[in-house]
């Protein structure tokens, strides 16, 4: 079997997936800080050690994401839209739409039944609806993002957020706190607002029969649940950790070389 390594340099996190054929041997993740070469080297040695694979056995190292061209270790780079489409095509072959919600962007990728990309759109101009939005707000509320879902579960109502802008939303929720509103209720409103932004992007593709959600935000069930309630079409949960979708797709594309 061929062993390939996919690297996804995102705005917040860098991810690595080590693949044997289409089977995941191991994955690794770390925060992106700017020193790509060092970060990537750390991830590579981690996945190789955990997978029990020596560097010479890796046929292809493929990079994708925001900093893909800066990865010196990569044999080639692939556009992240192609990587996301490849991952969905392989894992969920009948799913037309993939909504990737990353640290600083929302990307929608529409594929035809053959798995070819027919359309995509991306919002990377504005933090609203991206991972950063939810990060900024939860940190203003003093809630660790890993505790977001369980905090929202305690909500008894949703306090609406009137603005899409992350900066304005931050002030708005601070004023809610000052007015004595409960943190879970505020956060529930924020998740609702976040989901609304994602939905408005998804609707630009028109009706689809099946869709999936990838990227770091896809792990937040309080947001994905709202998407499921309001988006027409069947929601297909991404079979692997959705944060690794693009890195997985990159490794898959390496297999085809």
């Amino acid at each position: 079997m061929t062993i390939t390594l996919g690297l996804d340099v995102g705005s917040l996190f860098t991810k690595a997936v080590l693949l044997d054929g289409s089977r995941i041997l191991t994955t690794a993740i770390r925060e992106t800080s700017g020193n790509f070469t060092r970060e990537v080297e750390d991830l590579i040695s981690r996945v190789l050690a955990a997978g029990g694979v020596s560097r010479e056995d890796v046929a292809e190292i493929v990079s994708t994401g925001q900093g893909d061209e800066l990865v010196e270790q990569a044999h080639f780079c692939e556009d992240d839209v192609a990587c996301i489409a490849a991952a969905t095509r392989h894992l969920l072959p009948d799913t037309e739409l993939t909504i990737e919600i990353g640290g600083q962007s929302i990307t929608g990728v529409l594929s035809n039944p053959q798995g070819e990309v027919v359309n995509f759109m991306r919002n990377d101009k504005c933090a609203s609806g991206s991972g950063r939005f939810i990060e900024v707000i939860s940190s203003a509320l003093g809630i660790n993002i890993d505790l977001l879902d369980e905090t929202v579960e305690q909500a008894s109502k949703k306090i609406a957020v009137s603005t899409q802008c992350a900066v304005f939303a931050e002030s708005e929720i601070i004023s809610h706190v000052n007015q004595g509103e409960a943190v879970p209720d505020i956060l529930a409103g924020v998740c609702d607002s976040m989901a609304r932004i994602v939905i408005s992007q998804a609707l630009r593709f028109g009706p689809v029969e099946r869709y999936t959600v990838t990227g770091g935000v896809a792990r937040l069930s309080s947001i994905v649940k709202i998407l499921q309630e309001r988006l027409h079409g069947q929601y297909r949960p991404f079979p692997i950790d959705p944060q690794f979708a693009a890195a997985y797709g990159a490794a898959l594309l390496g297999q085809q070389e």
Partner: protein
Amino acid sequence: MLYGGIDVGSLTAQAVVLKDNAIYSFQSIRVKPNPVDSAATVLEGALKEKGLTLKDLCFCVSTGYGREQIQKEGLSRENMSEISCHGKGAWWVLPQVRTIIDIGGQDAKVIRVDKDGELVNFVMNDKCAAGTGRFLDVMSKTLGISVEELGPLSFKAQQVIEMSNRCSIFCETEVHHYLQRGASPADLAAGINRTMAGRVMALVRRVGPEKEITMTGGVAKNQSVRKELEKAMGTRMLTYHVDSQIIGALGAALIARQLRGVKQ
């Protein structure tokens, strides 16, 4: 005759007392959580300075946040949009003005007025922090300076490091990265002010500016943003000898004087 104008903004609130055709007294405060409290405090402050009370005003107009509530509470007799008030106020200080760029704490407006200071057209951004005072607030915090220092600091720049992002949140990250790599705060300040002017220019182009042009609101005090805007428009803007932050309240007081003839 005494007329009052109250303008409650996102960060500061102002009141102006007009005596016949001159500014008799004015005050500016940081806002309180409730706009009615802000309005009461700032108006009383402006009146007290001359030993006056609310009863001495023959008409008062409120504008800005909570302008309707302020009227309901009896602090003003009428309320008016900020756009009309800024148009009127700017026209009073500069009768030749036709375009007003008003940048407040949470929004930006470009207002066109006719020779009588009446509104012709306007465009506004209150959806996105980019191009509003908040952008400069966020950026100056990231640089570890006060927003007032952002203008002066940028004049020490050796080069201008413009932001590649539009979103204030993303620009924050961008500035952090530059600082980590040893970029000078002055160069960044200059870039931030240019980026700010770029966002405002998008609004200016939409309205189609007509001479003469001036600026109002808190951001008008940032000389670097002014210069960048002038460069982008290819024309100088007019200045005036009144605090740029009281133009809205001044306009409200002027409208109060106008309305007095109609409503009694």
